[in-house]
């Protein structure tokens, strides 16, 4: 279990890294936390000519808030986001999602931008991005572009990322007041990639109605599944167990998962429904408006 031969570069600045990517194009692979890339190399699923290790880029591990957006920098590790009071406070959904990524060892090294760039259909963060309508900031030697989640994730391990680009930053709208959120997932074994996961966030208006709903699922397709019609169903409604059950039923009808050795398509579909309902109920409960 040794990786194939590759050249290795460890640039000290982003500019340098971007130059290398420009020079080597699709022959190069960015090495961030290595938690997905190294296994793929060791299993020889990838054979890049050169690895561009971005771990030494200075000042790229910041999480901050600006203009209503939480901004997660290039080298922010899962563990850092998990422990960040800012994340917990302004975007509880993200905090809960990150906590469920792998094990502490993986979270210590893995990066949020890396997870988004990798775009595993079972990964938590792409679903969070999709649920919240987050943005991905892409950077190359030629400049910067910002893509909304639905234009970034294109298919199984496939994104709009060009070979000479890096994911420089993630932008996620801060949760408005009177919001509840939940990230629920089901795996056969704790710490595994989940069979199905649900990211749900509900914002309520002063009257206690659902002002905005964000809902997306992992594990039911090649990209995170944005449950747009269930969101529409929820919007403007008074929350109730019945409403959530209806939204969950809608999700069940619309997802089109595939079978693998871990679960049948039918079971994933069933999980999508159960978890959606539970996540919506939990989000409602957590908003603390139930009595209203």
């Amino acid at each position: 279990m040794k990786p194939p031969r590759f050249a290795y570069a460890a640039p000290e600045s982003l500019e340098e890294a971007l130059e290398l990517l420009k020079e080597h194009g699709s022959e190069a692979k960015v090495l961030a936390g290595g938690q997905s890339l190294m296994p793929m190399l060791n299993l020889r699923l990838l054979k890049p000519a050169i690895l561009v290790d971005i771990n030494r880029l200075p000042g790229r591990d910041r999480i901050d808030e600006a203009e209503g957006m939480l901004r997660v920098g290039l080298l922010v590790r899962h563990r850092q986001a998990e422990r960040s009071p800012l994340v917990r406070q302004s975007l509880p959904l993200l905090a809960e999602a990150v906590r469920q990524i792998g094990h502490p060892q993986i979270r210590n090294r893995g990066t949020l931008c890396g997870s988004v760039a990798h775009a595993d259909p079972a990964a938590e963060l792409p679903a969070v991005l999709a649920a919240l309508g987050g943005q991905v900031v892409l950077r190359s030697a030629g400049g910067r572009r910002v893509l909304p989640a639905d234009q970034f994730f294109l298919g199984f391990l496939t994104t709009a990322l060009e070979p000479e680009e890096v994911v420089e930053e993630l932008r996620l709208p801060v949760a408005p007041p009177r919001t509840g959120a939940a990230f629920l997932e089901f795996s056969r074994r704790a710490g595994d990639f989940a069979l199905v996961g649900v990211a749900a966030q509900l914002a309520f208006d002063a009257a206690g109605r659902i002002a905005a709903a964000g809902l997306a699922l992992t594990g039911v397709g090649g990209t995170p599944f944005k449950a747009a019609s269930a969101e529409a169903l929820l919007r403007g409604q008074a929350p109730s167990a019945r409403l959530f059950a209806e939204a969950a039923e809608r999700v069940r009808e619309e997802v089109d998962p595939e079978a693998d050795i871990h679960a049948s398509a039918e079971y994933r579909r069933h999980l999508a429904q159960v978890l959606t309902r539970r996540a919506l109920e939990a989000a409602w409960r957590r908003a603390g408006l139930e009595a209203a």
Partner: protein
Amino acid sequence: MSSAEPSFQVIGRSQPRLDGPEKLRGSARYVADLHPAGLLHARLVLSPHAHARVRRIDTSGAVRAPGVVAVLTAADLEPTGLLAEGEVFYAGHPVAVVVAESEALAEDAAELVEVAYEPLPAVLDPEEAMRPGAPLVRELPEEHASQAMAAHGAAAGGARDEPRPRNASDVVRFRRGDVEAGFAQADAVIEATYRAAAVHQGHIETHGVVAEAAPDGSLTIWTSTQGSFDTRQGTAGTLGLEEHRIRVVPMTVGGAFGGKFLLLEPLAAAVARRLGRPVRLVLDRVQDFLVSRPSPAAVIHLKMGARRDGSLTALQARLVFDSGAEPGSPVGIAALLLGGTYRVANLDIAGYEVLTHKSPAGAYRGPGAPQAYFALESHMDRLARRLELDPLDFRLRNAVREGDPRPDGRPWPRLGLVECLERLRDHPLWKERPAGPDEGWGMAVGGWPGGLEPAAAGCRLDPDGTLTVQVGAVDITGSATSLAMIAAEVFGLAPDRVRVVNRDTDSSPFGGSAGGSKTVYTVGPAVQRAAEDARRQVLELAAERLEAAPEDLELRDGRVSVRGVPSRSVTLAELARLSTRFGSRYAPIHGHGRVAQRSSSPGFAVHLARVRVDRETGEVRVTGFLAVQDVGRAINPAEVAGQIRGGVAQGIGRTLLEQLVWDDAGQLLDANLADYRLPTGDDVPRIEAELVEVPAPDGPFGAKGVGEPPAIPVAAALANAVEAAVGVRLNEIPFRPEALLEAMKRAG
């Protein structure tokens, strides 16, 4: 927990494992840590096909790759048969070996070996394979004793002259009385089919070996193995060498559980002999899954009858074990245990070992027993439910006792099944069985016949006053600590003043393989005798020095003194120095012990488990566990409890999580530790270990084997708990959440 007997100073008092610090600190040396000068690295080229003819192997590209020293196929090696010849019988069957200056270079070059295969139909389902006219998996060898099974004491007897169905490599049949008459007497007869998936032993250290040939062709083999003498014998037999020409050095074992018996050693040795340089062959995770010997899948059809008063009237069973591409499954033990746990006058059990085009099956913690008890103990609960009997009383009423015949007609030696059941019956947890919503409790029995193998030991007194105990049995469980405690008890020393060593097959006394729960049981008495012999020598020497009669001496805290006259004394260190210096008149202190135990020590366990079922997802979580086990005598209670917890954790794994999955073409789909789910801390609850001590007549201080039993009853205990929680039961392990959902839906 057992209480230490006051007359013992060491036995029965928990103490940390002597191998703990080096393992925790990372200073233990494993095979993969060895780097002898000139070391070469070997990489296997495996068949991607479950069944195919090998038309041509083109090694030319690989030979030219950087760092490559040799690319060898069956035809290049002496003897032949170390690699596939002409035909491959499972995906993972090694067809060539690439040897290079580094592991990475060997792996690079292995990709360049081009093999032309002509795929042949693969036979994957054992029941299909048994049908008349099914394609033949391979020509069957006539005699095929499995080393691993023999080491586990698996010789189960039973008639073996039964007609063999197609592709069956072994048939075992046990009969007693008249089952039809028995079923006619029953008030309830239940019939069901149980299935257990194939699982891997899950040892974290993969298989690995380093072999080096001396210029005269003699060999040294460093290996991660459960049996150094077994490895020597197997390698010698394969290579056609006399045993003494091979020195096997058993390395620290990073997990074995039945999986580490002779596998890669003959191949590595043959390559080393051919190339004249040391060769290392350490499997990576994927190859370990493909090449090693998993625990076989089993289908058990069981029919049992009982009367309203709770007596069993008949038991009929048909077992099919999927042995993969080679014989060697434990169907015989499974059949023996299935029919040997309860008193039943009428039985008829037929066990079939069937070949398929999958990785050859091997041993795993209680080979055959978890499969057998999943069926038997699920069935016992069902019968109890049907007849409205208390499940524990029902078992107690039928449980075998000493002297009862096993299915092979031999009487059971002393065993503690009844005592375990009684202990559970009196336990507060059984009496209360507290359960929340969607929770339920289940109990199950499991047992292991216990293995036997002769053993010898040496006990040397060293000039620092410590003992060096020499054994030939490998420590895979912490057994060396127990053996040290046995010698320490005899000498009145602290256990950390005893070193247990097993250097290599040249210098160690004979010891059997660590398997079958027999190391402490069989090697322990040899150590005890060796220590007693050494002690006698010590007292004789001290008597001469102290001018006293040996009977008047006492040995305590490393010192021999004249009873009642503490000032007249001599230390062990002084005695050792006296007898190991130039010109000394005294013979060195060196005790010997050897035994060939004749009676086995069966180990029985009774488990009580609580599960919680998520009715919407079908998820089963274990929320409580009590393991009652007869251990004869707990030499080191902490270690025994550790064995029990580990065994239960593995049982939980194979019941809820683990499964080797082959696709329709015979490809193993989960040959990695991401898809193959070993249980982690989150999947295993706190496990309470309750030790019952029914002394084994021939065990050291009454001890019997404890390693296997705790892995055995788990599946049925969980199945029974699921039924108690949600009213439906699963007949297939591992439990699939989907299957449970469907069962609940069917039940309404």
